[in-house]
């Protein structure tokens, strides 16, 4: 991007918002985030349609005298005006504290579709500024691409996602492609929302680097440089679609295919344990220093595949790999598309929160019996 992306941050705590905006802006030369009161934002963007590259919206804006609106309320206004063409297309991100989310939204998915992305302010305070800015810039690139291309056919979507037809057939999902195409015909922000929420931001056809490391049975932090070397061998299955630079992802089924080539006579990746996974990989690519993942205390099994969503939802989040066979199904708050992976909770956190209605009671009973707890 030739010029700096200009984002506006709407919050009711000006000092805090300005500090956060300054920090995020300072992490790269590619973005400038400015604070606005809700009133000023409405005037500048919704009334005057001045160009901006994105909006960060806090949920609760009640600290400002006379302000009765909310972040989701402003988001709704933006989306309606974008749909009617009265306001330019730009990404909208929910940016609030976990506590405010818990108090004002917790469990209600009603406003989810309004936002391309949801980031907690706490992440900004824990040294994740660079990754947050990467996400914002990624959204800018996604919107930019969607604004330039036409997605008339399923094949157009396949090309957009950086796949050929064969790869699309094996690794992606036609229902997803269809949804992207249809939403793009409605508005750019609707298509962007589908790509973000139903593809990039949830494990399914695409997985993150952390989940990739779980599936390969590798402790990526302890493996350091060897891990980067291993990633090079996985380049063919790396996501190369819109904003790929900002959202590093790998095609999950592509990784499965890669594994079958890597360990020619082995079972599929999901059925092998950590020791076998790392042994085969090390042997195939002659990698020295690849450290096998150690399943954390309380996460049963030896075939890690997914993250523990229950732990990830804690404040601060705890990232735990889990083996689905030894874990408890954990119902998502909102509807998830069929191509998205089911969500689980590791056994110990699930047992410690056994009355959580999102936990599958049959899985719990089965595992309690199995482990004699």
């Amino acid at each position, binding site marked *: 991007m030739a010029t700096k992306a200009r984002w506006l941050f709407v919050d009711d*705590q000006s*000092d*805090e*918002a300005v*500090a*956060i905006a*300054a*920090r995020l802006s*300072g992490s790269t030369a590619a973005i400038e985030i400015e604070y606005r009161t809700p009133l000023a934002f409405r005037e500048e963007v919704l009334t005057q349609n001045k160009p901006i590259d994105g909006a960060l919206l806090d949920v609760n804006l009640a600290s400002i005298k006379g302000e009765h609106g909310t972040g989701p309320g402003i988001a709704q206004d933006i989306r309606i005006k974008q749909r009617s063409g009265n306001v330019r297309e730009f990404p909208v991100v929910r940016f609030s*504290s976990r*506590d405010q989310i*818990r108090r004002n939204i917790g469990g209600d998915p009603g406003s989810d579709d309004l936002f391309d992305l949801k980031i907690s*302010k*706490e992440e*900004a*305070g824990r040294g994740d*500024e660079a990754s947050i800015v990467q996400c914002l810039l990624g959204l800018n690139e996604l919107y930019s691409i969607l604004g330039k291309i036409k997605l008339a056919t399923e094949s157009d979507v396949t090309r957009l996602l950086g796949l050929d037809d064969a790869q699309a057939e094996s690794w992606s999902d036609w229902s997803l492609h269809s949804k992207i195409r249809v939403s793009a015909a409605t508005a750019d922000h609707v298509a962007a929302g589908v790509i973000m929420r139903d593809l990039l931001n949830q494990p399914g056809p695409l997985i993150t680097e952390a989940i990739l490391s779980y599936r390969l049975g590798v402790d990526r932090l302890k493996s350091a440089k060897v891990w980067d070397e291993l990633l090079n061998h996985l380049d063919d299955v790396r996501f190369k679609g819109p904003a790929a630079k900002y959202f590093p992802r790998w095609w999950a089924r592509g990784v499965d295919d890669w594994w079958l080539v890597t360990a020619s006579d082995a079972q599929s990746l999901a059925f092998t344990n950590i020791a076998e996974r790392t042994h085969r990989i090390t042997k195939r690519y002659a990698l020295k220093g690849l450290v096998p993942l150690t399943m954390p*205390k*309380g996460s*049963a099994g030896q075939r890690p595949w997914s993250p523990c969503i229950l732990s990830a939802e804690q*404040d*601060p989040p705890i990232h735990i790999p889990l083996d689905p066979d030894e874990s408890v199904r954990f119902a998502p708050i909102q509807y998830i598309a069929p191509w998205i992976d089911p969500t689980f909770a590791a*056994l*110990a*956190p699930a*047992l*410690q*929160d*056994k*009355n959580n209605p999102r936990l599958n009671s049959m899985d719990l009973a089965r595992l309690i019996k199995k*482990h004699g*707890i």
Partner: protein
Amino acid sequence: MTEQISFATDAAIIDRLGQELVAKQTTALVELIKNAFDADATEVSVVFNKGTPSSLEIRDNGTGMSRNQLLNNFMRLATSSKVDAPTSKKFRRSRAGRKGIGRFATQRLGTQLLLTTRTTSSGDALQLSIDWSKFEPGKDLDQIKAELESVPWAQKGSGTVLRIVNLRDLWTPSQLKSCWRSVLTLQQPFPVAPVIGESGKDPGFSVKFVVEGSSYHNEAEVIDLDSELFAHLHALIEMEVDSQGAARWRITKNKFGDSRPWRNINHNQPESARPTPYTYLRNAYLKAYYFILLPELLPSLIYSRIRGVLNEQGGIRLYRNGFRVPPYGEQDNDWLHLDAVYAKRAVLVPLANRNFFGVIEVRDVQGKLFNEHTSREGLIETLAFVELKDLASSVLITAATEIGADREKKVHAGRANPPKAVSTGFEKILENAKKVAAAAAKAAQDRDPRAASLAAEKALEVVGLAAEEVQKRQRDEEEAQNRMADEAAMLRFLATLGMTTAEFAHETGMTFNAFRLDFQTVFEVALKHNSDKGFATQAERARSMLDRLDSLTSYLNSLAAARAARGMRPVSLSKVVEEFSRGLQAQAASQSVQLTIETPNYDPLYTHPMHEAEIASVLLNFYTNAIKAMKRSSNERKILLVADAISKPRSGVRLRFSDSGDGVPAANRDRIFDAFFTTRVATPGRAADFEQAAGTGLGLWIVKQIADKAGGSVSLSTPPKGYSTCFELVLPAEDDHGD
């Protein structure tokens, strides 16, 4: 051209130093009596004459004044004669006066002064006559003359008579009474500091009032302290600060438990077993008789008398070089903040001024540490005086708290099962009422007058018994209500504190976040322009402190979130312990403490339904105690939390919290869970509420309350190897029905 000029003194200075400076007539009179003491008098008479003109005479048998002393000392303002000679010639008394203006108290009392004085070496007496009304504004002081002449001396030996005429006050009975009381308390009621020097030579000093020719004596004001008050004390609290500033205190004659031997103290180092001496404070002594004003703890015949005396005269008086310094310890003067602390219910043991009859004596002959205000009301707030107030307040609160712990234990030990007692009381009343009804019915039905009379007598007897039972029940009820009120007050206080903390944690959460971001930027920019290693270390340290603060705030926030779920439910002990470890790990590391936890791999260790925040509160209590204990020892600092399940004697979950601190002394093991038991020195009364709440000896008591209420237990158990203390908390496990 340089000119030599000097101050001139307007005659109005006399009014400033007399009437305007000395607020109360009592203070003025006491000042003149002190002058007699300084002159080595052994007897002083204060003679009131309310005739016309009204007059007042202060007669003493002191050394008197020579002509030279009269001219150079008495007639010279602000003379330093007493500073230059801080002790009297004959009895070596530490002189009370220092400022050289005490004589103007006579101007406060009346418009004319007739001073007659004689030394042993002179024949006639000298008589000085001053008409204070001549000292009018606008005139130079030295232009107004007093008259001096020789007159015959009617008394034997030496002495001084001050005759003040045209009194400015009416000297009503209540003023007389107040003045009499001040004179009675002018000197210490009992010795406090150890007797030193040649004080044995001093035959003492007595003052008598004569009103309209008769000796004034107010029976109500005179109490025999030994027989009427001190014989019934509940404890004696003493404190000493030596000439090097080292302070110590003790409790003796404790009616509720063991005496406490001398213990060193510095209220600024509440946790320290070897506190350093005070920086400014020297030679101060406290002796306080402690009383708990409850009818059941004092003889019934004199309960009202003691309560009356202490309501009027209770408190801690201050004596400087043997003389009382008003207003400290006067009614409604709360200089040690005892009433304030008690009123706030920050400490729930009796420690208002009315619970003490005490004296603080400070020795400062040179007047370097403690100096009275020129108005003779109070001491100047020197650093030594500030230290004295805080130390004394701290000692009294600590002592009352320890006595409270002893008493609480006794109350618990002697208390039967309260619900049963209540039930028995009602049953008896009901039973007696039935008997009364039956006896009355019998009396009504009986045709034989004698039999009817007997039945009526029987009915009356039963009514009497029933009335007694009702009275007893009423007393029990009142006592129970008092206990409940104390507990409710404490719970209100703690709840407020808890809510404030939760609100604080919530409100500051995002501010910390934002602050961290700004700080990070400042840090990076500063590092770019400053390559100094020291600066980098400092910045890194600040960042790590911020991290610590952040993790603590997050933990408090999560507790506050748990508070939102008000209902009780089974709580996973494993989860609480793991969250505690995550929240406190950084804080522990900052204290060089290695915090280790051991929880089962999968067993969540569910308790019987309770509040999640209660277990967190138990852990925080154990933790803060452990940190203090480790700071007191030089052992390697480590804490171990082990959570597991037990099946015997019944199904339960257990937490063992061990630390490597200085351990719990054998003598304290039975008492640490009692309310108000603490080894920590209390904060002074003027401290803020949250400081008062710390170290009140309620922490482990609360832990015990939580354990008891949940049907579990808490105790000291054998620590694992390498640890010195182990608290074991056992809670009933959740049963099959989720209860």
